[in-house]
């Protein structure tokens, strides 16, 4: 079965916690996690809702493989309407929290309303209680986790919390669990803050609460799949050793590394902030930034980075709390905090990343917004008087200072906390915001990788690399190699990636498995765990259904074809250097084909035939 079949509905306005059975009809149509929670969400919430209104819901959800022996089976997601985008938001996290939620016997937590005072939800197996969080409000994610464990005298409680950023409404605030894993994107933490919900703390011991449909077949399927991961060069060696950060040099060499707010497409300092640089011994103290790799629950890849900073670095010299080992930079964070604003100081990036984890905000959107602010400053639109200090591209001091200010909601940090779209609009240059649907780009330039540009433009949660990772075919040759500059076949490949990703995100496993696993490896695990027919064809139909359901929500929320776009810079300004020199995005060629492949009208609306076929 794999599902616990238990949903907890928490009405924060009334202060009630009410268990209810999981809708198993929907589970058969949407599998779990991203798909199933979104089905609940779109069925219960007005698409026009103000993301910060009590009527917006916030759903924590696991997948049927979460907490099982499937490799990487520790994922959970948070679904809501995102304040950064006004679109559906679904943010996925690893660590140990998701599995613990399952061990406590819950598939899903639905938060409705808003609490009149700060609270946290305490789950001890089947017992649910809203606890006063007055003393925790204003505290960091790290302090909150420590305090909750101390108060309840249980070091094994798992905590997902917001920091100050979520409390004050930083529009890209995230929810951080296990100190440095995060449902990081789209501002799900800001919605949590608007509900006066500081944290969810969970302790689960009921590992028998979600029996598998066919335990023997499940063990065989998961064992075989783990062997595939171990034997694959990427998941068996590359990711554990260098993490995602190894891409810094790859993407720079390819000429697709957005630099200085996408003014450039290659960064001269990429080698200083790369995965390889994290392994190098520092001249200052003779130690490397990287201490070790780390794994989330059940993961046999272990791509996580654990870093320790140079204690003599100016950012942490007198701050011992940052001198221990903690979550190091992943590729997207290193890019956003570094190349996006021209900073090549790995230690400073690590410090800013620590702040993002500690205070709960998305390093991608933060770093990209700093890049936009630096361009406004470079153009003389922003001045030193307004910012409070000099803000040139490449200023390590300014980037770090803005991270500190954004975390506390002070000074110019308040402006940075609005995100790039609102910042650039406020200063009269909306064209300088490197966003789609209000969400900042991650670390690939849509001019250098045409398919990624299409993926950004069509992502249901705004610019995102994790909805259809076209880097795989365009750079890595997985599953087949595609020319980064070609447009032919990109729409169909992207649709396949988007639909498969929706399945993976709904199963409870990590997307990184797909560097080695195909549907043929994933499907037997789902089939053995879950009752019902989960053929490969049906799974892909589920993925397509989820994608279209998200699209329908966005359309009903007021988004249109006009929002499936890229900033003018990517459409008109040619890449200046490198192998992709002269390239601009050919989105206008790919988008109509994408709509057609999707079974949508020329306006990007699912046709009646598509709706009927998918049952949306």
């Amino acid at each position, binding site marked *: 079965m794999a599902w616990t079949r238990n949903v907890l509905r928490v009405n924060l306005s009334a202060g009630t916690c009410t268990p209810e059975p999981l809708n198993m009809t929907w589970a058969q149509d949407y599998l779990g996690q991203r798909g199933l929670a979104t089905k609940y969400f779109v069925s219960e919430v007005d698409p026009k809702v103000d993301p910060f209104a009590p009527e917006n819901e916030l759903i924590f959800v696991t997948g049927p493989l979460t907490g099982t022996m499937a490799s990487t089976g520790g994922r959970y997601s948070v679904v809501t309407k995102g304040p950064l985008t006004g679109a559906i938001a679904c943010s996925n996290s690893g660590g140990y929290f998701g599995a613990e939620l399952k061990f406590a016997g819950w598939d899903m937590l639905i938060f409705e309303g808003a609490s009149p005072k700060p609270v946290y939800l305490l789950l001890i197996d089947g017992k649910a209680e809203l606890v006063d969080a007055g003393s925790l409000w204003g505290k960091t994610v790290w302090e909150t986790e420590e305090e909750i464990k101390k108060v309840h005298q249980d070091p094994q409680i798992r905590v997902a919390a917001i920091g100050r950023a979520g409390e004050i409404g930083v529009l890209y605030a995230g929810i951080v669990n296990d100190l440095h894993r995060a449902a990081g994107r789209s501002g799900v933490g800001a919605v949590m803050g608007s509900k006066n919900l500081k944290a969810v703390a969970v302790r689960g011991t009921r590992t028998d609460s979600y029996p598998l449909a066919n335990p023997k077949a499940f063990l065989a399927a998961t064992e075989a799949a783990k062997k595939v991961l171990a034997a694959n060069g*990427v998941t068996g060696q*590359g990711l554990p050793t260098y993490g995602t950060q190894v891409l810094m040099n790859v993407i720079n060499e390819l000429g697709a590394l957005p630099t200085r707010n996408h003014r450039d497409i290659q960064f001269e300092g990429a080698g200083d902030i790369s995965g390889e640089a994290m392994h*190098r011994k520092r001249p200052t103290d003779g130690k490397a930034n990287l201490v070790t790799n780390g794994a989330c629950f059940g993961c046999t890849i272990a791509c996580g980075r654990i870093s320790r900073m140079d204690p003599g670095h100016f950012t942490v010299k007198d701050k011992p709390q940052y001198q221990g080992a903690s979550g190091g930079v992943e590729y997207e964070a290193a890019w956003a905090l570094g190349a996006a604003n021209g900073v090549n100081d790995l230690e400073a990036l690590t410090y800013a990343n620590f702040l993002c984890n500690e205070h709960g905000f998305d390093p991608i959107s933060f770093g990209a917004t700093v890049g936009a602010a630096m361009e406004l400053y470079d153009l003389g639109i922003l001045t030193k008087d307004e910012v409070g200090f000099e803000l040139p591209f490449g200023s390590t001091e300014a980037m770090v200072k803005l991270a500190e200010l954004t975390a506390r909601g002070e000074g110019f940090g308040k402006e940075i906390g609005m995100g790039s779209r609102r910042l650039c609009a406020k200063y009269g240059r909306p064209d300088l915001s490197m966003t789609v649907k209000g969400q900042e780009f991650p670390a690939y330039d849509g001019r250098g990788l045409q398919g990624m540009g299409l993926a950004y433009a069509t992502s249901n949660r705004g610019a995102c690399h994790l909805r259809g990772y076209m880097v*795989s075919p365009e750079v890595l040759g997985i599953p087949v190699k595609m020319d980064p500059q070609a447009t032919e076949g990109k729409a169909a490949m992207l649709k396949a990636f988007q639909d498969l990703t929706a399945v993976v995100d709904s199963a409870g496993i990590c997307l990184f498995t797909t560097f080695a696993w195909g549907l043929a490896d994933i499907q037997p695990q789902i089939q053995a765990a879950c009752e019902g027919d989960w053929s490969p064809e049906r799974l892909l139909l589920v993925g397509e259904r989820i994608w279209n359901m998200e699209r329908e929500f966005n359309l009903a929320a007021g988004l249109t074809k006009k929002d499936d776009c890229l900033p003018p810079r990517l459409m008109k300004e040619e890449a200046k250097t490198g192998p992709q020199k002269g390239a601009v995005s050919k989105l206008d060629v790919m988008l109509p084909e994408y709509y057609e492949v999707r079974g949508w009208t020329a306006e990007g609306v699912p046709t009646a035939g598509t709706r009927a076929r998918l049952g949306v």
Partner: protein
Amino acid sequence: MRIALKLFASLTERLPPEARARHRVELEVEEGATVLDVIRREGIPEAQCFLVLVDGAWVAPQDRATRVLSEDQALAIWPPVAGG
């Protein structure tokens, strides 16, 4: 003729220590040398040549034996890697 050889990730260790931070050495190779010639000459395990670029352009495994290098081109090689 001279070309640049750029090695990354675990292949970086094959470079002289002073070249590792920049991931790059200059090589003198014969006119007409192919990508595979250089890979073999430098003793790089072919199974470790996951991603091979010449001046940033991808060279498919089946093309490495016939892809001839030109003066001043950069041959960059990675073992199996990925990100996200």
